[in-house]
C-alpha cells in the first residue's frame, strides 16, 4: 500500500521499511490476525524452552492503560522455528524475532538457531521483561551484564542486533551505552514500566503474578524521555514505543529521536491503527511541507538545520 511512498519510507539497520510503523513485541500475533499494516513484524519473545506463562488474571485495565503479567508464554525455540517461522516468512514484511533467556547460554542457543534462518531480518534481545523474577531476561537493569550479553550474542550473528531496554532503571541511557559498547546495532525502547493493580473489593493484587508491566498512554512521557536520552547518549538507531495511540504520538517519538515507532497496547483497542498511522503520517508530512518523515527524526534535539513549520 505504501510501496514507494518516499514520505514514509525508511530503513532500520539496513532493513528497508515501507513505513516507520512496527508493532511492539508481544502485542500482535500475525499468524492469528495478519500484520495489520505494520512495516516489519516483531514476534513475541521466544525462549529456549516452551513457557506456559503466568496464572490468570494476566491483565488489568488501569488509568490510560493496562498492566499485564503474561510471563513470556511462548512455544519454545524448536516449535517456533519448525512450526511458526515458515508461516511468518510468508507475511511479506521483514521479520524481527525477539529472543529471551535465563542464562547467556540460552540466549546464545536462540540467537544461533534463529540467525541461521534466512527469513529473519533482525533479532531483538529482550533483556527487560518485568514479569519474570530472575535470569538474564531482567539484566537490562545492569550495564555490565548488558554489555557482556550483547557481546556474546554479537559474536554469534551477522543479523542486525536490537536490544530492548526497560525504563524501570535509574539511568536507561547508561544501559544503552553499554549495549552499544557490546556491539548492538539498535535500541528498542521502552519495555513496559513495572506496575501493579490492586482489586478494590478484595484489596489484593489483581494480577496472578502480583506485579506486572504498565503500558498504554500512561507511559508515553516515560518512553519519550527514554528515547530522547538514549538518542543523546548513543549513535544507535532507535525503535521508540510506549503509549503510541495517534499520529501526534508518532511524530513526537520521531522528534525524540526514534527512526522507527512501535505500536503496542493501542492495537488491542483498535486493530486498524497501524495502517491508519502510516497513512496519517504521510498526510502529516505533506501538510508540514516536508518530503520525508526522516526529516522529523531528532528534531526535539534541535539538531536539524531548519525549524519545523508549525501546524
Amino acid at each position, binding site marked *: 500500500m505504501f510501496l514507494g511512498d518516499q514520505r514514509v519510507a525508511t530503513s532500520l539497520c539496513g532493513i528497508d521499511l515501507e513505513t516507520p510503523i512496527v508493532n511492539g513485541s508481544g502485542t500482535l500475533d500475525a499468524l492469528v490476525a495478519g500484520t495489520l499494516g505494520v512495516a516489519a513484524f516483531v514476534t513475541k519473545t521466544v525462549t529456549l524452552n516452551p513457557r506456559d506463562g503466568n496464572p490468570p488474571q494476566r491483565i488489568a485495565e488501569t488509568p490510560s492503560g493496562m498492566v499485564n503479567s503474561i510471563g513470556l508464554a511462548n512455544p519454545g525455540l524448536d516449535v517456533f522455528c519448525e512450526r511458526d517461522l515458515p508461516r511468518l516468512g510468508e507475511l511479506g514484511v521483514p521479520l524481527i524475532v525477539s529472543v529471551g533467556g535465563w542464562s547467556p547460554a540460552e540466549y546464545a542457543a536462540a540467537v544461533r538457531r534463529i540467525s541461521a534462518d534466512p527469513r529473519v531480518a533482525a533479532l531483538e534481545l529482550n533483556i527487560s521483561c518485568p514479569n519474570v523474577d530472575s535470569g538474564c531476561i531482567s539484566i537490562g537493569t545492569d550495564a555490565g551484564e548488558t554489555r557482556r550479553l550483547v557481546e556474546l550474542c554479537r559474536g554469534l550473528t551477522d543479523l542486525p542486533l536490537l536490544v530492548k531496554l526497560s525504563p524501570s532503571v535509574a539511568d536507561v541511557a547508561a544501559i544503552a551505552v553499554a549495549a552499544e559498547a557490546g556491539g548492538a546495532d539498535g535500541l528498542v525502547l521502552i519495555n513496559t514500566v513495572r506496575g501493579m493493580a490492586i482489586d478494590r473489593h478484595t484489596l489484593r493484587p489483581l494480577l496472578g503474578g502480583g506485579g506486572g508491566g504498565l503500558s498504554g498512554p500512561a507511559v508515553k512521557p516515560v518512553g519519550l524521555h527514554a528515547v530522547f536520552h538514549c538518542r543523546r547518549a548513543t549513535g544507535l538507531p532507535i525503535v521508540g514505543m510506549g503509549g503510541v495511540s495517534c499520529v501526534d504520538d508518532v511524530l513526537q517519538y520521531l522528534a525524540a529521536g526514534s527512526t522507527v515507532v512501535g505500536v503496542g497496547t493501542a492495537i488491542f483497542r*483498535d486493530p486498524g491503527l497501524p495502517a491508519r498511522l502510516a497513512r496519517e503520517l504521510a498526510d502529516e508530512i505533506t501538510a508540514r511541507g516536508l518530503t520525508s518523515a526522516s526529516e522529523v527524526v531528532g528534531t526535539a534535539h534541535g539538531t536539524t538545520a531548519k525549524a519545523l513549520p508549525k501546524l
Partner: protein
Amino acid sequence: MPSLATRSLPLLAVEAVGLYTLLRLQADGGEVGEPGQFFMLQADPEPASAYLPRALSACWADSGEIAFLLDVRGEGTRALAHARRVRLTGPLGRGFAIAPGPALLVGGGIGAAVLPWLRRALGGADAGTLLGFRTPAHAVCAALVDVEATIVLEPTLVTEPLARLMPFAGTVYACGPDPMLQAVAALCAEHAVDCQLAMEAPMACGFGACYGCAVRLDGSWKRLCVEGPVVEASRVLG
C-alpha cells in the same frame, strides 16, 4: 483470519432488564456471526475512564439489531450503557457448534446473556433451559432466553436441577461463572453427556495478540479468544 474491521453503530435503545442492562445497537448489514461468538465493544467517542474495549457475546443479532446484555460493574460498562454510539470489532472467536437432537441450555447469572440467540438458533428443536441467579431481580432476564425456563436462586445451584436431568439424552450448552462451568463439565463427563461451555476471561484485544485471556484447557494455559469462547467441556477437565 477474523475480520478486524471496526464499525460504529448507533444505539436504538438501552433498556433495564431487572438488574441487567440491554444494549440494542442498530445493525449495519455487516457480519454478525453466530451464537457464542463475541465482539469487542467500546463507547464511541471513547471514554477517558476506560482504555480497553469490553468483550461481550451478543444476546441476539439479526438484520435489524445486535443486542448485548450488560452487567454494569465499572467504568467501561457504565460508558457503554450511556453511549449514543458503540464501536464494535467482530464477530470473533468460535461460537456454539449446534448439534442435532435435544438441547439443554444452562446459564448462571450474566452468563444467561449468550443464551437467547442460541435458543433462537435451535429453532423448533426439543430444548429446555435451566438458569441460576443471585436474586429475583437478576432473574428477570430469564424471559429473554425462555419463558418456560426453570429458575433457581442462591443458595440453590443450577447444577442441582441439572443433576436430576442426568443422563441427558442430547447436548448441554452452558455459560456462567467458572466454578459453575467446572461443575457442569464434571457432571456431564460423569454421565457421558456432550457439553459445550461458553467461557469468560478478561480480554484486552480479542484477536490473539495480548495473551491476557488465559484459561486452563487440555492441561495448559490457552488463549480463550483463539480457542473459544465456546469450548468442548472435556477440555477444561484435562
